[in-house]
């Protein structure tokens, strides 16, 4: 074997080396359809909102049964977070009451969080219709939607939240 040939073989071997050492691939391919049941994140565009619908009128009973014990009868006065009121309390010098109505920038966040995390003792137990309805009820308590407005995958992302423009990026963001 000539020196050139030998060098050539060594070069080929080195060229193969990275592909050999990078073969640490232990993730199991999974189809988007199989991931779908786990994909419970709802972004502001609402693209992943499920079918279903509900109104505040329908949500009142859901709220009374599953939410009021911790969040109070009308979204205030319970041991857990205040959900309603607080408009105007973010003003300079005031003690803020950061509620869905006064502070939350996106209505999609409400659906996302209620569905994944509420009620506290039985998260993920509500139907999508119940989540739409109770979201509508909480928004209605804040005067944001009407009692008979239908919330669904199309209408929820279009709900205009009062504090939508209340957030700014941190000035010392290293990214």
């Amino acid at each position: 074997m000539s020196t050139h040939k030998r060098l050539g073989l060594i070069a080929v071997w080195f060229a193969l080396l990275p592909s050999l050492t990078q073969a640490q691939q232990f993730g199991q391919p999974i189809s988007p359809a199989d991931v779908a049941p786990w994909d419970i994140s709802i972004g502001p565009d609402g693209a992943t909102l499920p079918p279903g619908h509900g109104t505040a009128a329908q949500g009142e009973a859901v709220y009374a049964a599953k939410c009021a014990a911790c969040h109070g009868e009308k979204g205030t006065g319970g041991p857990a977070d205040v959900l309603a009121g607080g408009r105007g309390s973010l003003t300079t010098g005031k003690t803020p009451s950061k509620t869905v109505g006064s502070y939350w920038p996106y209505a999609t966040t409400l659906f996302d969080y209620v569905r994944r995390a509420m009620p506290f003792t039985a998260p993920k137990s509500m139907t999508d219709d119940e989540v739409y309805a109770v979201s509508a009820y909480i928004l209605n308590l804040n005067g944001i939607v009407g009692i008979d407005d239908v919330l669904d995958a199309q209408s929820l992302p279009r709900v205009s939240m009062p504090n939508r423009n209340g957030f700014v990026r941190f000035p010392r963001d290293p990214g």
Partner: protein
Amino acid sequence: MAKRKSDRGLAEPAAGNGILSRRTLFEGAIAATASSMTAAGAAAELLPVQAYMQSPGAGFATYGQPSRFEDKVLRVIPPPPAPGLLGIGTARTPLHLLDGMITPSGLHFERSHSGIPDIDPDQHRLVIHGLVRQPLMFTLDALHRYPMQSRIAFIECAGNSGALNAPQPQPLGIAALHGLLSCSEWTGVRLATLLEEAGVDPAARWLIAEGADGASMSRSIPLAKAMDDALVCLYQNGERVRPSNGYPVRLLLPGFEGNTNVKWLRRIKVVATPTMSKDETSKYTILLKDEKAWQFVFPMEVKSLITRPAPGIALTSRGFYEISGLAWSGNGSIRQVDVSADGGQSWAPAVLQEPILPKAPVRFRAPWQWNGGPAVLQSRATDSTGMVQPTRAAFAAERGLRGIYHYNAIASWRIDEKGEATNVYA
């Protein structure tokens, strides 16, 4: 000059109200004060042969526990918002009873939003999907096949020290006030390795990380951080991550606010824009003096605390004490810590104990001669970016005191004539 002082057993002052030169810690000049107490009494009373020296000790244990005499070294758990709401809240590290830079795993602070899930690792799956070439699912066995890295890193809850936003100083101890800070050696797989295997789409800028707890706590994280130093952790201080810290797998984002270090990690979705989860909108945003709020405040900025003396550990006699504490920065490493015993009127540099690591707490020490009178102890850290820990007034001037999160201003312990320490504003 210094040599002569040292010979006389006197330590060199470095700042007001008894702060001594840090050289004192190495020169033994404190011996004169320490040796003034003379032992007395019959030899058998002074140095008795104890019963445990006259019989064999206990046998071996499969998992060791602290001495039974250390049963007061416990986390502090504030009451839940309502009796049924266990699992919403915190358990806070007793920083004043620890030393060094590592927090024992059983004393690492806990913060959870829906309790601690009881996860069987064989049933647990981590999924990466969204803007990727190939969605992937990982078992714990699969994660263990990858090359691993270890790093020592602090995790600090964004709400740590939040009580210092209150108009009046709260009469609480260091665990209740500042105990949402802990440090471990974390070991795991680089998140970048797993993301590269899935093949990240060029349009991706963020990901959302989600836990397998009841609340499925989720946070949007910049892709740049994920590709930089994010670690998918399987081990904490050498053993598998504790359940309260995310067993069997948690995300570590060194330097970022604790809430983004998602525990019980089950899903990472690669996306173009933030998902705007509940915890990055209604919580973990900083309401400023006006109606605006900072959003996506990730790094915990430069901060330090004196952990000893501190409330609950009274000074017993005048004389020499070592002031000891922790300093850390989510933006880099600690360059300098200064200490003051006169409420910030004068400062002297503390000794920084090795190792000094980026995004890890540094143990600092400074010698102090307590004259028995009132004192206000403070520490002030400077990090490798040049950022200096602000005074409470400067902190409030920038953002007000309505923000709850990311409180990093200089903290103060007032020492009274009895040697008791209390939280004050100075």
